[in-house]
């Protein structure tokens, strides 16, 4: 086998059949250049994947408003091009205020935004490494338990308990809540840790609170 960028990329993308994989791996053992190339490409892929993000909750609302025919800010970008940056700032601020008002008016009694964002991230196939909610960045990482992905979220701000959740003891103790099939566990402590997985509450709670779970995102 000769050095072949396409084949090495297909190898990294798991797009080769078993015989081809075996041939590439045999070649890698003998070729320092391709070994180094695969190492660099793996690293580049990991770096690129770190750029995956969750859409802001306000954008989700804005898209729905567009589709549902509510007064949208469609074409704001083109207006900004014509009006200049100063006017664009004003428009952006107005749009943000409108979005905040709409979101707050429509979410009465719903989940805290940070908890909702982490639950969405837990169900996202893109596995983002962070999400920003109301200017607060929440670091995310994933592990697995019983073959199911477990999402860890760490934030400098506390995760408020959503409706229907319950504390394990007093107000400052961990709380647990269910969202669809997901169990959400919030661990108290110096860091604000949220653990989310499609697992029974008892199982996730026991694992997350016994101290052996890797609760610190990478």
């Amino acid at each position, binding site marked *: 086998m000769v050095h072949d960028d396409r084949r090495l*990329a297909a190898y990294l993308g798991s*797009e080769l059949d078993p015989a081809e994989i075996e041939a590439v791996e045999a070649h890698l053992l003998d070729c320092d250049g391709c070994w180094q190339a695969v190492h660099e490409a*793996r*690293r580049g892929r990991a770096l690129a994947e770190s750029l995956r993000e969750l859409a802001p909750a306000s954008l989700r609302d804005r898209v729905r408003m567009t589709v549902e025919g509510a007064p949208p800010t469609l074409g704001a970008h083109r207006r900004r091009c014509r009006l200049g940056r100063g006017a664009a700032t004003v428009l952006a601020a107005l749009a943000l205020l409108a979005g905040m008002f709409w979101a707050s008016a429509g979410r009465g009694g719903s989940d805290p935004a940070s908890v909702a964002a982490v639950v969405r991230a837990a169900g996202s196939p893109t596995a983002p490494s962070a999400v920003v909610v109301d200017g607060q960045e929440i670091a995310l990482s994933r592990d697995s338990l019983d073959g199911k992905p477990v999402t860890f979220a760490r934030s400098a701000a506390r995760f408020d308990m959503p409706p229907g959740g319950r504390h394990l003891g007093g107000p400052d103790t961990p709380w647990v809540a269910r969202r669809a099939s997901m169990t959400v566990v919030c661990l108290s402590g110096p860091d604000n840790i949220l653990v989310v997985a499609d697992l029974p509450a008892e199982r996730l709670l026991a694992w997350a609170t016994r101290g052996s779970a890797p609760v*610190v995102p990478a």
Partner: protein
Amino acid sequence: MTDQPFLDATMAHLDVVWSIARRMSADPAEAEDLVQETYARAWRGFADQGRGDVRSWLVAICLNTARSELRHTRRRPVTLVGGSELDEHEASDDVSGEALASVERQGVSRALAALPDAQRRAIVLVDIGGLTAREAAEIEGAPRGTILARLHRGRRQLAVLAEREGLHRGP
């Protein structure tokens, strides 16, 4: 046409469209506009979409919309991560893990923006958007092998550029 079938089919892919829009836009506000315009165009074309792969279809609309916006504004996309919230982290005295991760992502973004356009697009589609090389090839109108080659060279170059940015993430 009721909007619920459209929302059911497309909203699950909003994070993917957002991640791609962020890489194709100068700032978060422009990315939000791009996503909104993508969904508006998708909605108008939903009846003709058939039942093909919705995610690839949305991504293609997003890229085409970004291209048309580029032609309109006649400037190259700038890939930067973060708005004021990330700047606040950087300005903070609390050098937390989250702030460090934000700084790293900004460095990766700068490195990605420095790649040749074709390589950057391949990486955006496959590594950030989660498409297969075949799906990316269909969107780009290029052979799958070409996409794979762009991916490989782009990833290696990204690793080298990130190294120059002082980043050491990855295997």
